[in-house]
């Protein structure tokens, strides 16, 4: 039984030019104790997807328009009234934002912010909450934790702040942490440390993590399974090594081919021409078809191409390209 099951999630954003379907029928599962990566370029809907899980839109004119978000032992988060969902946030599912500077209250000391998370959800005394905060800072390997408890966020470096944010996320031992581009704003050496920290915490506590990023390297580094997202839909899912070593959807292949990491210096890079489609009036059928080198007529006929197991792919490796032959698997 999966920890989190997302079924046909749809999220809409109001914009002056119309309603944008940022998430258009997304389904995937996250297992207990696994690190699941969602990767895609800007505007693909990966951030909207993970915010939809907790309906954390930060005041933006967005709403979950359909689908289910089933959390084991709790219920359907998408249908839950706001008051109940507020209890789930932090306690069962925690969220880590991209910019640690704005995720922390600049006028409150670190220790107080962490303790506040604990005090809000658990009936413990202040001394106990403070001691728990200290231990959490130790768990995330913050040096001189006693001193840091009294510090303000702006006194800490970016990496330290992100550790504090992770400590706060772990404060109530949630089953699931959603991390939205947690290392994008950090130096690469600090990113390395933070990603290791996340993996280490998962190893100790068994917490599942959904990691949203644009960086395929980050996914390769710590994720177990992954999903590739384009224009509001998933185009490929599977174990990380299967997807990255043997990509099967044309978009995934194009994305990997555009990276300069492995290309020899005397060859040109292969960018993806064109731009992602509008989410207000998207093209019919497969949304990548207008930019796809392999597109044919049947790519734009019919509705959204489903994620299905294809011939030659490892178990659990699915893609949404109608040109790939489907493996007939018993339902």
């Amino acid at each position, binding site marked *: 039984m999966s920890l989190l099951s997302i079924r046909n999630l749809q999220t809409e954003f109001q914009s002056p030019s119309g309603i944008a379907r940022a998430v258009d029928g997304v389904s995937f599962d996250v297992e207990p104790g696994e690190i699941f990566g969602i990767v895609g*370029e*800007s505007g693909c809907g990966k951030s909207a997807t993970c915010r939809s899980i907790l309906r954390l839109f930060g005041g933006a004119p967005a709403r979950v328009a359909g689908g289910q978000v089933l959390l084991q032992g709790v219920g359907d988060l998408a249908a839950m009234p706001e008051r109940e969902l507020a209890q789930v946030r932090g306690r069962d599912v925690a969220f880590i934002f991209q910019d640690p500077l704005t995720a922390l209250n600049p006028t409150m000391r670190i220790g107080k912010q962490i303790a506040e998370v604990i005090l809000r959800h658990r009936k413990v005394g202040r001394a106990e909450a403070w001691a728990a905060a200290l231990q959490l800072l130790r768990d995330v390997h913050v*040096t001189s934790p006693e001193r840091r408890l009294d510090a303000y966020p702006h006194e800490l*470096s*970016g*990496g*330290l702040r992100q550790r504090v944010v992770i400590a706060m996320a772990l404060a109530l031992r949630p089953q699931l942490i959603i991390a939205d581009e947690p290392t994008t704003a950090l*130096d*690469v*050496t*600090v*990113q*390395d*440390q933070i*990603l*290791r920290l996340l*993996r280490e915490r998962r190893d100790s506590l068994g917490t599942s993590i959904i990691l949203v990023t*644009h*960086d*395929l*390297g*980050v996914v*390769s*580094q*710590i994720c177990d399974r992954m999903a590739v997202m384009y224009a509001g839909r998933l185009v490929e899912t599977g174990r990380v*090594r299967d997807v*990255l*070593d043997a990509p099967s959807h044309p978009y995934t292949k*194009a*994305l*990997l081919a*555009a*990276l*300069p*990491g*492995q*290309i020899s*210096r005397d060859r*040109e*890079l*292969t*960018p*993806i021409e064109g*731009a992602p489609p509008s989410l207000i009036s998207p093209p019919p059928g497969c949304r990548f078809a207008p930019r796809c080198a392999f597109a044919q007529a049947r790519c734009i006929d019919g509705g959204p191409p489903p994620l299905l197991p294809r011939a030659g792919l490892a178990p659990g490796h699915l893609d949404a390209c109608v040109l790939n032959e489907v493996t007939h698997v018993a339902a």
Partner: protein
Amino acid sequence: MSQLEFHKVERHFPVKRGLLDTLAGRPGISLHAVRGVDLGVRPGEILGIVGESGCGKSTLARIGVGLQPADGGAVIFDGQPLDGPDPAGRLQMVFQDPYSSLNPRMTIGAQLEEVVARYQPRLSRAERRTRVQGILAEVSLVPETALKFPHALSGGQRQRVSIARALCPGPEILIADEPVSALDASVQAQIINLLKRLNRDKGLTIIFISHDMNVVRYLCDRVAVMYLGEIVELQESADLFAAPAHPYTRALIAAVPDVRRRQALAEPIAGEIPDPFAVLTGCRFATRCPLVEAACHSPQSMRPTSPTGLVRCWKAPATA
């Protein structure tokens, strides 16, 4: 082709002192953003400058193009010390943020024609237009782009316009400060290809500032690694990535995630960039270096490490 050289370039930013500090007689502190940089740019090369936050690469870029002065040492361009941006427009710059690097209220054509009018004042209106069209074509933008405003263009297109603007005066050296960092990977490739083509076909010298080791490895001929204001290693790109000589370079390369494999097993370097205000003698990486010894705390200088490479570490393999 004019030479560009940095000779012991220094740049400090004095920090404003509060009244209490003045009364207490505390000495003024400065942020040493760039310390003693010696660097010669070879004509026709693509030189990469990499480093993490606080290393001074952006400041060095601005000193190199003449936007900021050197507080110590000098930048020599075409045999003369640089005193502001080159009046002939031979030194140009491309910036990082596609959203603030173009005037939102002027059409692309107007912005580009303005540059051409400034550097080739004898051209007629029609000739200016033609030149602008020519430059747009060089950066692979359709002629209609001239009629558009920046908000109608994508991030990648805007960066092309920025490059076009820098090309209008007919520069010899282009300093690009993180030109692709704000773009998606699939779009980065377009701009990187463009820069490579400009370098190859027009002999444009490019100084490419970046924090992205993968891009630098692919694009650059030589690479300078900066840490806390100093260059710690300078090598041919292939040599640097095959056999990085400085411990910081090694840590930097090891930290870059590789799509082909899971995380390396080697332990990452501990800690973070230390307080840039701290006055340190000797190697500034010593506080985090796994190989640190007592001798590391005396001033370090660049030593040859390969036929063409230099490294600021007495423990690095040296050439005879």
